[in-house]
């Protein structure tokens, strides 16, 4: 990682997995000079109270984000097209994460 500014470390996005089998969720971000230190910093800032069984750290610069002006064309759910919303079948009993 190259430094963004002379005296600040790059930013890393932190993802925590609350339990085995669940999805990693965005928890926040930390500064660190490299991946190993980013993992350690993330561990200290976000997992000290048993919040996670697994951690990911990703350089913030690697994230490609949609821009606010895209929100119309990107996210319009198309409510007039009922066939796009698959809610006509039931979820099997015992499935907690879906």
């Amino acid at each position, binding site marked *: 990682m190259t430094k963004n500014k002379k005296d600040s470390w790059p930013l890393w996005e932190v993802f925590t997995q609350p339990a085995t089998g669940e999805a990693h969720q965005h928890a926040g971000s930390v*500064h*660190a000079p490299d991946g*190993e230190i980013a993992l*350690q*910093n993330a561990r*200290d*800032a976000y997992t*000290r109270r048993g919040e996670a069984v697994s951690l990911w750290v990703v350089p913030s610069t690697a994230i490609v984000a949609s821009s606010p002006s895209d929100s119309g064309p990107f996210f319009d759910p198309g409510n007039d097209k009922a066939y796009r919303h698959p809610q006509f079948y039931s979820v099997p009993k015992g499935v907690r994460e879906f």
Partner: protein
Amino acid sequence: MNSNYTDQIKKNLFEYVLRLGDDNLILGHRLSEWCGHGPILEEDIALTNIALDCIGQASAWLKLAGEIEGKGRNEDTLAYFRTEREFKNLQITEYANTDFAYTIVRQFFLDVYFFYLYEVLTRSKDENISAIAEKSLKEVKYHFRHSKEWILRLGDGTEESHNRTQNAINDLYPLTGEMFEIDLVIRSLMKENIIPGITKLKTSWETIVRSIVEEATLTLQEDVVFTAQGSRQGYHSEQLGHILAEMQILPRTYPDAEW
């Protein structure tokens, strides 16, 4: 508490557990001085977390020491109402933070020490000792990972970080000799298998310390003269008095203070 121990064994066990407690108490206090002064927020949090782990371990060991002694002293009385000469911590634990490099080198030397020591103590015949050692070992494994990664980065970093870390090693390595002293207290507990197989500690410590220091392009002196001695008998550097003054002033001024 194992009531089968003779009075002499109890006395030695109290003394030994006190050392474990004092090492962690003083080191934890030193680390806590970084709180709010860390080089960067994330590292501030890391050092403070490690400080809390050390204070937690100190609390467990001192509580056990009080129970062994059986004179009604608990972890707080032992921490706050003893004087300098009654503290048995290693002198390296009281060494001033100085700068980030000194703090990390001090921590690194002690993390490797506690890693191997606790590993031995998890096999102790005494269930209280093995239980605290096992719980603490988990924490120390993380402390070691933290300090090791920093040694590698500081040593193999910039010219300034390299020089500062080398200076810290030159000053702190001579204080590590007394970590491995085997005196009558330890010898008597080894005979009882309360402390098993501690004789390999020095070799294991030096092997891992040397390999990481060299990987970090730093040097561990070959013919070092170990200067620190007498900590386990209560002899300390000037530093400890200052630490105790700050640590003990509140409970000594208001002995019944509660929060």
